[in-house]
């Protein structure tokens, strides 16, 4: 308040403006990033619960291996890939990203703190980018720590092969999942003023994609309408809108590149996501899987990335145009 302090601050600000390095260290965006990541997200109880939820399924699968038992699948990804890609990356990780990410903008809009924040010399675009990056860091840290732990623990319990392969496949797949679901959560956060709604929509997408469609997809894949020669799933080209199909199509692409193909254990699982059609021969009791390549893995990946980028841009334009008041 004193004129001496005023002078001191203006001197510092002048120095700050002259020196690019100092400007970075005192940038409002960096402060907002630190506050969002360390004060809002990386809170011990939240972190512990998220971490436990991420590792619970795979950890139980590892602990359940009886001592001295010879596993049918010796590759770590063949044994754990299914539970990791479904339980961890299709359910827990998206839910955590939604619960943590959806309130980032909506909560500040609802509580009114956004009004104070936007009165500071930081643009709305910077607020969004900073918060999105903080969410990305949170998701990445949570994922890499839980995945590393599982990758380290699993070989202690059983002499698995392809440990590094498991780590790389799941890490890359998690990045796709994270980008997609955090973009949905973030887009909803910009759109809805009520946190509850911002959380509800991504949760509904997760439930529909990985639970409801999991039940109904096989029906659509084997039911025919009228004289149609193709099942409903193909007739109405439902695969275009099937998020799980596209996500796991990307997963197949990763398996092809890193492992050289899809293992038998994965086929039964991926069949559930519309990626394979199952045919049963009653005479030989043999089950054959035919790949449903409606999209190439790269095509699905581009589609997912486009949706994610589209949602972020939509959120950005909505937030930029939004009137913010108490």
């Amino acid at each position, binding site marked *: 308040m004193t004129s001496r302090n005023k002078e001191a601050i203006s001197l510092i600000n002048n120095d700050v403006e002259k020196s690019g390095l100092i400007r970075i260290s005192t940038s409002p965006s960096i402060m907002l990033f630190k506050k969002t990541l360390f004060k809002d997200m990386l809170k011990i109880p939240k972190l512990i619960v998220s971490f436990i939820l991420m590792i619970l399924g795979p950890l139980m699968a590892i602990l359940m291996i009886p001592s001295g038992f010879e596993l049918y699948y010796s590759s770590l990804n063949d044994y754990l890939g299914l539970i990791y890609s479904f339980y961890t990356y299709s359910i827990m990780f998206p839910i955590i990203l939604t619960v943590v990410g959806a309130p980032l903008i909506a909560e500040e809009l609802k509580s009114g703190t956004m009004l104070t*924040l936007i009165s*500071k010399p930081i643009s709305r675009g910077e607020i969004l980018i900073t918060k999105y990056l903080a969410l990305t860091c949170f998701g990445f840290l949570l994922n890499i720590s839980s995945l590393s732990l599982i990758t380290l623990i699993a070989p202690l319990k059983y002499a698995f092969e392809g440990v590094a392969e498991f780590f790389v496949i799941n890490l890359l797949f998690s990045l796709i999942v994270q980008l997609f679901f955090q973009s949905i959560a973030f887009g909803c956060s910009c759109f809805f003023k009520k946190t509850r709604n911002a959380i509800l929509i991504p949760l509904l997408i997760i439930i529909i994609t990985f639970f409801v469609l999991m039940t109904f997809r096989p029906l659509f894949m084997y039911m025919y309408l009228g004289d149609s020669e193709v099942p409903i799933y193909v007739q109405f080209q439902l695969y275009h809108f099937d998020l799980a199909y596209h996500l796991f199509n990307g997963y197949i692409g990763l398996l092809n590149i890193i492992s050289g193909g899809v293992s038998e254990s994965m086929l039964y699982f991926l069949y559930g996501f519309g990626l394979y059609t199952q045919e049963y021969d009653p005479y030989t009791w043999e089950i054959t899987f035919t790949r449903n390549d409606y999209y190439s893995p790269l095509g699905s990946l581009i589609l997912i990335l486009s949706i994610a980028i589209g949602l972020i841009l939509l959120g950005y334009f909505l937030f930029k145009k939004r009137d913010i008041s*108490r």
Partner: protein
Amino acid sequence: MSSIPIDNLEDYYIWTNKLTKVYGTGQKKVVAVGGIDFSMQSGVHGFLGPNGAGKTSTINMLIGAISITEGNAFLKGKKAGTKEARKFIGFLPQDPAFYDKISGLEYLIYLARLNSIPKNMAEQKALELLKFFDLLQDKDRKIKTYSMGMKQKIGLAAGLIHDPELLILDEPTSNLDPLVRKKIIDYVRKISKNMSIFVSSHVLSEVEQMCDKVTIINKGKIVLTDSVQNAKKWFSKSTNLYVIDTNANDTFLSLIKGLEIITNSWIDEKDKKIYVNTNNVEKFQKEIPKLIIEKGLILKSFYQPESSLQDVFLDIINKDEGKQNDFKE
């Protein structure tokens, strides 16, 4: 006001030109601010108006919280709502919101850092302000445990953390009890010695205590911009109100009641003096002293009173409402 050359805009803390805010479209269209022109240089500028007049919408446009439908606004020559304009303003919203889970000290440091103040300087500044607002002993308490008054003080401190050149306060005393109100007004008066303040309120007595200049807004239109003193003088003149005090006010009131030049007269309950509205000032000033002498009374005082801002405000708003009603009819 819109004729001010663009080169001189930096001389004005606030300068608006046909500033308009319209909410909704079609039949749901609501004009919150209807093309207002006003400016503010240094000092403390009050922004008065009844609830729903457009005060908060105007302030929110100035800080860039809501979009401007039409017209423009500049803060020291910088377009309102831009990062450059926000650098030198401090802002206390009406009913401010806080991150409840952080302490008062942490909150102030956070906001200081958002204004690019280095960490050590931010802490020093935060502590200085906490001391100024008598919150030093509560600096480590979570803001959610603060009382309403304490929250308002921490909000004010937050607005001051980067030593802004202009402090914008939106209804700083609303929802506060009289004791805390007085404290906040005292703080604002202290702060006003070091910076310019733009304060909105519908509590007239407060604006009168705090401000040098006042702009009155009603139904999204500016109805008066002037110094508080001029506004009061203008009111007295416009209503031709006079105060007469004699040794027998009751007798004299009965004498003047029927006169043609008197439109209204009464004895004030508080000061027991005669208040008179006249329709002919010149004749009134000649006739009244003459009448007092003729009746053998003693004239103690005869003057035009200074009105309170409350009188000015109510008169202007009532006239404005009348005008708008006439227009509707």
